[in-house]
């Protein structure tokens, strides 16, 4: 205790995740829709709670013509980051395109709670209400 004896740490190291760095680089840059779908899925398998990767995956799924998958992925991302107004906007727009105006209105209303007066959300809410949707809150 009175002096320092440097010994190798006896704690076992966790296994090395070979592509974690690449995944982080993937999550932190580039256009979401342009990212490789498979690479995104691999990275999400490494960290299933990465909201940014989930958002990118949803955008990529949307561009790849899989709106159902994209909606499910957005919803999963929103369970992890319920206050993310950008995600709510993207999900709401997607829902509007699929004709689900009521839920789109819900997403817009929830988005406006964290991004008050954001024109895109106001516009989405208006469009959803005009289409017969009514926000629950």
């Amino acid at each position, binding site marked *: *205790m*009175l*002096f*320092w*004896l*440097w*010994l*190798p*740490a*006896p*704690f*076992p*190291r*966790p296994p*090395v*995740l*070979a592509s*974690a*760095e690449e995944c*982080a680089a993937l*999550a*932190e*840059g580039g256009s979401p829709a342009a990212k490789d779908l498979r690479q995104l899925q691999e990275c999400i398998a490494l960290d299933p709670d*990465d*909201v*940014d990767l989930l958002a990118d995956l949803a955008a990529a799924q949307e561009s790849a013509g899989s709106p159902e998958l994209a909606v499910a992925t957005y919803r999963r991302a929103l369970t*992890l*980051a*319920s*206050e*993310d*107004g*950008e995600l709510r906007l993207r999900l709401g727009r997607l829902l509007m395109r699929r004709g689900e105006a009521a839920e789109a209105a819900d997403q817009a209303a929830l988005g406006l*709670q*964290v*991004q*008050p*007066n*954001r*024109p895109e959300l*106001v516009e989405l809410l208006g469009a959803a209400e005009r289409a017969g949707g009514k926000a629950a809150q």
Partner: protein
Amino acid sequence: MIRYAALLALRLVVAAVCVLTAAYAVLNCSPFAFDMFIRPQLFPWVSQFATWHHLWWASAYLAGLVTIVADLRRPPAGAPGRRVAAHWLSVGYLLVGGATSAHLVMSPHLPTLWNDARALPTAVVALVPMLWLAIIDHLARPPAQVPGSDAGWSARQQRVLVACLVVAGYLWIAHVARAFVRAEPAGNPLAWVLTSLWTLALCLCALTCLYTCWCLVAALVASGTGERSAGRSAALVLLAGAVCEFLRRAVFPTIALEPVPAAIVAATAGITLATACSGLIRRLPAAGAGPRGAPPASRLAWAGPAVALLVLAVATGYGLDRLERLDWAFAGQKLTVMCEAGLALLVVWLATRRLPDRDWSARALLVPPALALLAVLATPRLALVAAAWTGDRALEPAVAFERFAAAEIAFRFISEGVIDRGGVDADYTRFLRHHASPQAGPVVIPEVDLAAPDGQPGRGPHIFLIAIDSLRRDYLSPYNAAVDFTPHIDAFSQGAFVFRNAFTRHGATQLAAPSLWSGAMVVRNVLAPGFERMNALEKLVVREGYRLAINDHTVAPLLRPTTPVTRIEPDVLSADTDLCSNLDALEAHLESSIEDPRPVFAYMSPMNVHILNTRRGGQESLDGEYPGFYAPYASRVRRMDACFGRFVSSLKRLGLYDRSIIVLTSDHGDSLGEDQYWGHATWIFPEVVRIPLVIHVPTALRSRMTTDLARVAFASDIAPTLYRLLGLGVRDNGPLFGAPLLVPAGEALVDRRRASFLLTSSYGAAYGLLRRNGRLLYITDLVEWREFAYVLPPGAVRARAWPITPDLRRLNQALTRERVSELGSFYRAAGRDAAPTAQARARTPADAADERRPRP
């Protein structure tokens, strides 16, 4: 014996004055400790000590002189040469010490000491009287006359081993008992067993290493000077080394002292202390030695030491509890544990003096440390097997073994000493330390203007910026549903923007406050003359014709003399500033100047919940219990909430509320016992960097603005936000600068979702990297030599620790490097072409004395 006790008492006086003088000079050596403790006169008794230092010094000189009166007499003819040398050294002490004391009385030195080149020599020279007296002690009495100096070191080997093993057992039992009381009681009982084994192995490893070192040094000394007193010499060498290393590794990093001065002062202090102890042993009266080598007289012979150890354990526990909340980065607690170990060794050593001497044994030298080492290596494997066998991951060593280390400072201290945690690699460490040190180059404060050139001055709303020092967001109901003691802040937040993901970029006020005022990330030394060049809020005040009302002790002294300022409660010392009286005074100021057409810009930074205040009065609550919260803190928050509510009512009564922007925030948070951390000195844990940020804007403005309440926000965004709310275009000054949090609807906010942000401590080399919209915080703490990772869900009250994988470490270290380089190059390169700041101006003693006076 009475004479010896008197000598000890007088020497203690000398030591106390010398050590305090050196400590004061060391605080002056470190720019951060100087700015934190000395310049603001944080502890009045320290300033008093400096003011009257010349008298203390003269008294210590006289006390030292009394102890060497016998040596001042001329030795008889034919006396040994060392006796003659002691005489002349004593005469030298009389003359040099007398002259120095007289000079100091006529021209006091300590009150003029500043953070300049004189501080380090003062710290070293302050210890010279102790060393001088110790040398006289050594010369005055040869080793042959010292009790117990006849035995060779090898005969003591087994006695030293027994003492070390007993002390290891004592430390383990005393601190395991304490950890059991303090740690979370829940969890797998097997984890407690494994953790207990681990701490026992650590204690045995540390103490047997000490024993091995003693043997090796004693053998070395004996081979050079003979067997006589080699054991004692070895113990003193170890004492000097221990003091030196303790100061260098555990104390000086907490005040960010540079490595070279730290090494010089630590080595001087270690040598001086060991020499002084050795000298006092030399002065021991001959009758002090008891019979040795005989069996104990009775079993009761062990009762005394046992009781002494029990008292020591209780006293240490009490001392640690008292120190915990006022400690500075564990330095005081570690010192307590180190003193405890030293005293325990002394007690056990004295208790074992009746043990028979035995011949030197190589087996006794090698086997105990080898077994202890084996235990240290085997216990984690045992834990892994247990985890695999039971399927309980809480038994894994990285989780289970942290429990006692987090709950009990002694085990943390021992663990840090014995185990290399790895990860903070040398190159990375060197890089960060270089950037934190003055060797990285002089800081040049750039001229920065947040407002774009097209902005036009106008008559804006009143602005009330309340940045409560150390206010945690989870003690406010807008951020924590469990809080029921801030109803007024809750009501205020209903009609305001509550930023749910706000951070400070700097732990502690020294950098956090200038960062808030400049709207930028800052570096050490920026808070100096020249700061006005980047003081965005002051520029806003001047440009928009505000009248500034301020209660602050950090930035206010650096405002331009031409800025119109009304100082609120200027005579109150920094640590005593109180939100309630601040707001009462501000309200009186508003009422008295209600006819003045100019808008008011008020800034308050009260210290109600600063650790200095929440630990006062025996750490008691002001008004009862707060289950789940730290009551002394929560009760003060409740009191502030009531005062804030009254102030808001007053604004409404005066018709100002809807014509005002009100910002309620803090410069940083505070650790309130999380993993035994208290305060915010040199670390940047989640509870320190997360802050509340609530902004009320006039209704008309509110309906036109948009924001993202969940986006990562910083205190450095407040200044650009105010600019934008006043209709000024905000210039993009790069990633080190803040950006508006509120913009007109239709205007885009700066995208921060994927960016990484550097956070730094004000006083220590601790760096944080905030990523993923504030969800991940990676900390490199070069004060504790550890790295931490946390997940911070925006909606959650508490952060949770995250395991550090090699990839996570590599990635975060690389990003931290990038951000630190950006910061360094901005402040060290951006201003190269600009005129040098006034900070370079040499400071005279007259300046120093002037700045120490309480500020009007």
